[in-house]
């Protein structure tokens, strides 16, 4: 029985990663789910959040937004509109985005599209969280 499963993360602009891993944890739209090798075929939409995988006993994090995952016994394919490895995340930019979003929320003007601002805020916060998680486990 195979001990690893292939994880592939693809966005419209590039292939973010393709690796043999031991475990994948993904932010499903109905809550987080974990995938081990020989998982039963499974298809799920993903929320905004951090996806992580274990390789050689080490946890690594990837930020994903607006995607879905297809799981087969030997392979996990994640198609996302945005995906960044933790070490690629620009913390400064995320922080600025968060401030901007929060400011807009406070203004509460008519023309502000709340759903959009909220999504932007969530993205910024999860980006930072992903990065911090990775940092706290010495993954970077």
């Amino acid at each position, binding site marked *: 029985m195979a001990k690893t499963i292939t994880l592939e993360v693809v966005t*419209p602009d590039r*292939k973010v990663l393709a690796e043999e891993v031991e475990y994948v944890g993904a932010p*499903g739209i109905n809550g987080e789910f974990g995938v081990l090798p020989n998982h039963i*075929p499974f*298809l*799920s*939409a993903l929320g905004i959040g951090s996806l992580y995988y274990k390789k050689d006993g080490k946890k690594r994090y990837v930020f994903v937004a607006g995607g879905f995952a297809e799981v087969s016994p030997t392979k996990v*394919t994640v*198609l996302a*509109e945005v995906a960044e490895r933790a070490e690629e995340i620009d913390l400064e930019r995320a922080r600025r985005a968060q401030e901007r979003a929060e400011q807009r929320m406070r203004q509460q003007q008519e023309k502000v599209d709340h759903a959009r601002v909220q999504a932007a805020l969530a993205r910024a916060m999860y980006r930072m969280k992903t990065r911090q998680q990775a940092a706290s486990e010495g993954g970077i």
Partner: protein
Amino acid sequence: MASLRDIKNKITGVKKTKQITKAMNMVASAKLRGAQNRIERFRPYADKFYDILVDLASRVEPGVHPLLAKREVVETIGIVLVTSDKGLCGSFNANLCNAALRLAKQKEAEGKTVKFICIGKKGRDFIRKTSYEIVAQFPEHMNSFDFQLASEAGNLVIEGYLSGLFDEVHIVYGKFVSIVKQEPMAAQILPAQTESAEAVNGPKSEYIFEPSVEGLLAELLPRYVKVQVYRGLLDTSASEHAARMTAMDNATKNCDEMVGSLTLAFNKARQASITTQLMDIVGGAEALKG
């Protein structure tokens, strides 16, 4: 015959033009490489996306999602026309516009109204001169665009479709076949076509879906529209650069040819003038001998 100086000026002019066309050729080839890379990186995403969508769609009745269902009465057709912003790329834009116009005429002959969404300046300028209505336009974007543009245009298409502004949406774009071959391509975006699925329906692995198949489709279909628009954008942009490369290469060659023939004319004129001068001198000398 033109004077020596006229010809000389013309030669200098043609040489300068040649420098420009050559530079444009090189710029286009550099940009083409970038655009080609982008397509190649995007294709795995698009293909996988399509596979999953087709698989999902084959499990449900088309009526389950409005973007999937064929409308019984089709009155208005939306055409998304993707062209470049700039000219000087041979017949590339003209071909695209004509293909779109043909499609529009054909639909009109079937008694349907046609409305356009134009991405790229050239197509918009062309459609403006026709009697068709332009619902939305995105000029000056082709130079640098990302998924955001496809997202915006895609949302427009979806909203238009759901609100009944369109009953069917097609996209016309320049398919990038190779550096020497680009062809206008028309494809239907909405209602989403997933019929080809039936043929490959073989033994299906049993999936667990989260949320339900319907929920997933509701997530995927809007994104699928954007993916198709994005593909159109990427292809058109690569085709544009390839077409410009070829056009500028031809222009450079033509410049060489012109310089050649002008130099010949210049030399002929020079010889002629020397001959006349000699005749004058000889004639003058003969007269003096008297």
